[in-house]
């Protein structure tokens, strides 16, 4: 049984009174440890697919099962726990809390889940920061970090709960090529450690590093063979 099983996913948005099909009968399986790149032009539905797999959104029709959890019909508490325990999100704009320190940002998923005592959370946060090489920036505010560093903090936050799947939506979109490459290297390293990785990207060079590329156009999948 595949880690991610999507079948007949449909999702329609109403934009300015006009209905837009973000997902149009999308079916897809992803295995444990896969590194998937989802590509496609803007508005093609790639982010919607990632959000549905990540439990941030639910399809209008179809089913999506991740690690045996029926996300299409799950209630808020199940979806929230799923996002907290099994998924780590990495966003293009980092989405760090500017008023919190690096460490506080990293341990936020643990705080939300009510995990252990503060000290225990901090220790786990520091370990996550060590994994991305930023333990010396624990007390810095995000504004005191470079773009690449901020994205690594976001990766550390995604890692802190030992997720099975990391979904990175345009993780290099706001970075220069050098720093973007560092981030992809970091993500690949995590994938090598066994974490399933889904990257949404416009960047062909990033997509080229995935084991499998899924191209979406007008809400439909145009799958290409894995590059590696």
């Amino acid at each position, binding site marked *: 049984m595949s880690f991610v099983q999507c079948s007949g996913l449909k999702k329609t948005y109403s934009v300015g009174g006009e209905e837009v099909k973000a997902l149009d009968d999308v079916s897809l399986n992803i295995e444990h440890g896969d590194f998937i790149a989802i590509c496609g032009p803007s508005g093609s539905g790639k982010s919607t697919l990632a*959000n549905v797999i*990540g439990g*941030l*959104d639910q399809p209008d029709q179809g089913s999506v099962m991740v690690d045996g959890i029926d996300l299409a019909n799950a209630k*808020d*508490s199940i979806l*929230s*726990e799923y*996002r*907290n*325990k099994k998924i780590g*999100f990495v*966003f293009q704009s980092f*989405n760090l*809390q500017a*008023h919190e320190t690096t460490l506080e940002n990293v341990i*936020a*998923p643990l*705080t*939300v*889940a*009510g995990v252990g005592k503060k000290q225990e959370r901090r220790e786990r946060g520091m370990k996550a920061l060590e994994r991305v090489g930023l333990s010396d920036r624990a007390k810095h505010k995000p504004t005191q970090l470079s773009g690449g560093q901020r994205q690594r903090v976001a990766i550390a*936050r995604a890692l802190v*709960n030992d997720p099975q799947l990391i979904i990175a939506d345009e993780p290099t979109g706001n970075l220069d090529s050098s720093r973007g490459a560092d981030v992809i290297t970091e993500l690949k390293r995590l994938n090598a450690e066994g974490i399933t990785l889904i990257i949404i990207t416009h960047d062909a060079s990033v997509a080229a590093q995935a084991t499998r590329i899924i191209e979406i156009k007008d809400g439909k999948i145009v799958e290409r063979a894995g590059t590696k």
Partner: protein
Amino acid sequence: MKFIDQFRTGLRNLARQKLRTSLTIFAIVIGAVSVTVMLSLVTSTKSFLVSSSEKIGMDTQVIVTGTSGLNYRESQWIGPDGSGKKIDADVLAAVEKLNNVQSATLYLAGSMFDSYKVDDQELTMKNVGVEGYTPNGTIKHILIAGSELSDSSNGSGVLISSDLASDLGFKGNETALIGKDVSFHYRKDMGPPDAPKADEVGKIIGVTSSDRGSVLSVDLDWAVEFQTWPNPQNNQNNQNNQNNQNNQNNQNNQNNQNNQNGQNNQNGQNNQNNQNGQNNQNEQTQDQSQIDRMGYGSIWVSVDQKKNVDGVLSEIKQLGFGAAAGKEEIDSQSTAFTIIGAILGGIGAIALLVAAIGVVNTMVMATLERTREIGIMRAIGATKKTIRRLFRVEAGVLGFTGGLFGVILSYGFAIGLNQILNKQLADSGITDRDIVSISPQIALIVMLITTMIGMLAGSLPARRAANMDPVEALRYE
């Protein structure tokens, strides 16, 4: 998410918008102060009045009057005016026999003097009442100096209310008045103009609180004397007697001169004169005591226990007399204070309502400003419930902080108010001080209410935040 983390997060979020948070809290502080001070002022004053009334036994006091339908206040200053049923010693005896009556006294009130004099100071007695009663413990005062009337005060002891003591220049030094002679000068319009009474002279033995107005209290027997005036008819009779006597003398002279049947005439006239004299004597005795004719003003009764007051009241009414209980006055005062409290509390509640609108406004702003944060929290696993609670706790913290500062400020206000009131109380000769007190219960209730109001006001914005679509929230710029 643990409550302590929600609390910490709430505090931190509030600290991010210091000015807005401070202004919102300030509005709650105003509401909390209004409610706390007004409620405390009313409850403190109410309990002060009730305890003061109980100190003088007002709660177990009943006033019996000849006229029915008078309330306690109206019954207090009834003088013998001849209206209604006559109040006299027989009525007193009947009342004293009633169950649960501890003591009772006949009572007289009047204003028969136009001035009083202490040392060399002569002051008008306009609006000053003179009351008389038997000092058997039925009528009690709040004493500022000296002692109550008693049998040992030789019938001419005088209690003077503190406002009169102030008029005499003894404010704050009331004790110095004790032992001083006081003389009362009768009004010219009282009694027959051709038979003015000499000033009455007594000795001040106590200074009382002026809570019952400007009043001088004396022994009943003496008060009866105040209201006893020679009947003009007596004067006429006296004159007649004198004339008769003169006539008699003339007659005697004539008899002596004429020495004819004089003896018989003389005897006859003497008999007649004697008879006239006897009649005059009898009439004069009756007229001297107009109290006997018109009766006393009222009877004051002390009931053994408060719970027996109603029973005594109804028994007196069954005797055909009017009866009013002091506790009715206390109750009506309490009711008045409860109404005032409700009105003032309502004003405070309006202030809190306005503050609550401020909280709603602040929290709505916060949800808009933190839309992206809400999206992030949802992405990392926060449930709708967690988001809802976060905002509610934050609003609750606003309410609690406002309530806390409000209560602290209220304690300050209470100290200030007490300083003003203490002066007023001292001026009135009342020894009680610091009557405005904020009870810990009121303080806690106010803090609880402001916290609840905060949380309630934060509910709508909290629900709005929780129901945000996380995907939309993450896209929010």
